[in-house]
């Protein structure tokens, strides 16, 4: 078909004057660019929707199924309300603080109120799609990240405290970290001139380490739930959690493959790596449970797949399919131990294992990205002469692991210091924990005046 078109075109071209050939070529060029843009924009808008799905209802279902019935709505609200709050914050200042060029640590205010963020592309980030598409895509990441922290303070957090905490956390921890890794001039930005180029394709450090480590800080600061660990606090509906986990897996294709910012071969690589990582991790966790408990559990399977998705996130656009399987499998095992052994050994009440899965999985994934990242998958990093740079250890660049460690440590430190300050501030202004009676009554009634299930109606 292509050959035939070329033949006809050439024949027609040869029969015409030079100017009209130039004009036709220019028109063809524009048309091809428009087609690529259309494909990219379609994929990116879809990806943005997929990432939002991860929060609502993916995370909402996953987390709320794990808590007691009296807290089901309160837990869903922890996810849902972010869709509203973070959106407004992002539109006001968030996009600017992350993506405007400013200092290596934070962006300036040139895009405040989304000034200048229109349909024209921003070539620094995504040359073929409207900047607004990029903005709204990144917004979905900003929404889900604080939602992950809610796993640590589930069943005992005051709603007003959570709202204030979220706003401050986005400003003090997320926006700076996202800028450092993804913003132009950011300290850790591998693509745009960072001093310590850290390879983080879709947010292992930015999203998972920051939220997971913050979660640990919150769990330690707030203290354990009343009755923990003697009183049984079984998940009230693993059915909801399974549905949520599957929606997370589905939406994660937008999270990782969408981070290619184009409907390209790189998106395909990231899609495949993501899926393989999830699958292998589910098996890794189940395998450990089967050996150690005698029975493979559904909760183990879905926890494993999430751990794999977390770990593959920074690696997704850099690794080949079989390393992705390996990364996933190891992540399933690592997180299994974090959640079952380390947590009970230290006795902290990270209620829904936000640290055990996101903090630990993200740390593992970020570091192992330095091992398996290869320019065979991602050749976008070139030196000044235009030669493609080696990426990770498999490319003969073991030093990348050091850069990954630097990014990881910065994420940890920022999360710990930032979260401690924020918790102190919130404690003083709104308070953090519900009072003892409200905790026993449940968040649904005490914070929202509602019941999740009312079977007599």
């Amino acid at each position, binding site marked *: 078909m292509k050959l035939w078109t070329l033949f006809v075109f050439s024949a027609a071209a040869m029969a015409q004057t030079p100017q009209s050939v130039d004009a036709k070529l220019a028109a063809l060029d524009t048309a091809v660019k428009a087609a690529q843009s259309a494909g990219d924009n379609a994929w990116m808008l879809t990806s943005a929707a997929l990432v939002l799905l991860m929060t609502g209802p993916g995370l909402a279902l996953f987390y709320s199924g794990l808590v007691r019935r009296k807290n089901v709505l309160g837990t869903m609200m922890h996810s849902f309300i972010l869709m509203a709050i973070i959106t407004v914050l992002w539109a006001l200042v968030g996009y600017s603080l992350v993506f405007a060029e400013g200092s290596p640590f934070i962006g300036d205010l040139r895009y405040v109120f989304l000034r200048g963020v229109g349909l024209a592309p921003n070539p620094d980030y995504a040359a073929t799609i409207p900047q607004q598409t990029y903005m709204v895509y990144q917004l979905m990441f900003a929404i889900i990240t604080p939602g992950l922290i809610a796993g640590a303070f589930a069943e005992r957090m005051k709603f007003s405290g959570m709202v204030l905490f979220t706003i401050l956390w986005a400003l003090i921890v997320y926006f700076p970290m996202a800028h450092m890794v993804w913003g132009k001039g950011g300290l850790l930005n591998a693509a745009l001139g960072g001093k310590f180029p850290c390879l983080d394709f879709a947010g292992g450090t930015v999203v998972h380490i920051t939220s997971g480590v913050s979660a640990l800080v919150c769990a330690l600061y707030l203290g354990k739930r009343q009755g923990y660990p003697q009183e049984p606090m*079984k998940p009230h509906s693993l059915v909801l959690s399974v549905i949520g986990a599957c929606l997370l897996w589905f939406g994660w294709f937008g999270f990782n493959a969408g981070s290619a910012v184009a409907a390209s071969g790189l998106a395909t690589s990231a899609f495949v790596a993501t899926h393989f990582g999830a699958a292998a991790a589910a098996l890794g966790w189940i395998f450990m*449970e089967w050996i150690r408990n005698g029975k493979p*559990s559904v909760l183990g399977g879905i926890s494993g797949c999430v751990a794999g998705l977390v770990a593959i996130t920074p690696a997704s656009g850099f690794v080949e399919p079989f390393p992705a399987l390996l990364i996933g499998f190891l992540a399933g095992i690592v997180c299994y131990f974090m959640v079952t052994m380390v947590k009970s050994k230290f006795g902290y009440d990270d209620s829904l294992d936000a640290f055990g899965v996101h903090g630990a999985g993200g740390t593992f994934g970020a570091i192992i990205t330095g091992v398996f990242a290869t320019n065979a998958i991602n050749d976008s990093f070139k030196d000044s002469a235009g030669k493609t740079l080696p990426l990770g250890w498999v490319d003969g660049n073991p030093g990348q692991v050091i850069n990954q460690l630097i990014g990881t440590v910065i994420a940890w430190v920022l999360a710990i210091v930032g979260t401690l300050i924020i918790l102190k501030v919130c404690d003083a202004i709104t308070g953090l924990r519900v009072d003892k009676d409200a905790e026993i009554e449940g968040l649904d009634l005490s914070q929202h005046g509602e019941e999740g299930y009312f079977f007599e109606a």
Partner: protein
Amino acid sequence: MKKIEAIIQPFKLEPVKEALKNIGIDGMTITEVRGHGRQKGHKEVYRGQEYNVDLLPKMKIELVVTDARLNETVKTLTEAARTGKIGDGKVFVYDVAEAIRIRNDDRGEAAL
């Protein structure tokens, strides 16, 4: 009049209902309950956290019969509910002071 309260295995509900229907007893109240006698529970594990679950699901059947029909009803019920293993359940019998049909204010055995 006597009230029969039977705690039985959930999977025995249909056989018991069928057996009672066959002797002409069709008024009863069923509740899902949890409990145990001597039956051991089971262990559940959620992400490494172990729970001993010793409150087991059972079905409670409550029905009120005339004194004349008591023995036949209890015999039919227990035979239908029996497996011979621990966990089959128990039957308790109580005296009933009064019975009233709400629709038309029938009293005593006429209300049953």
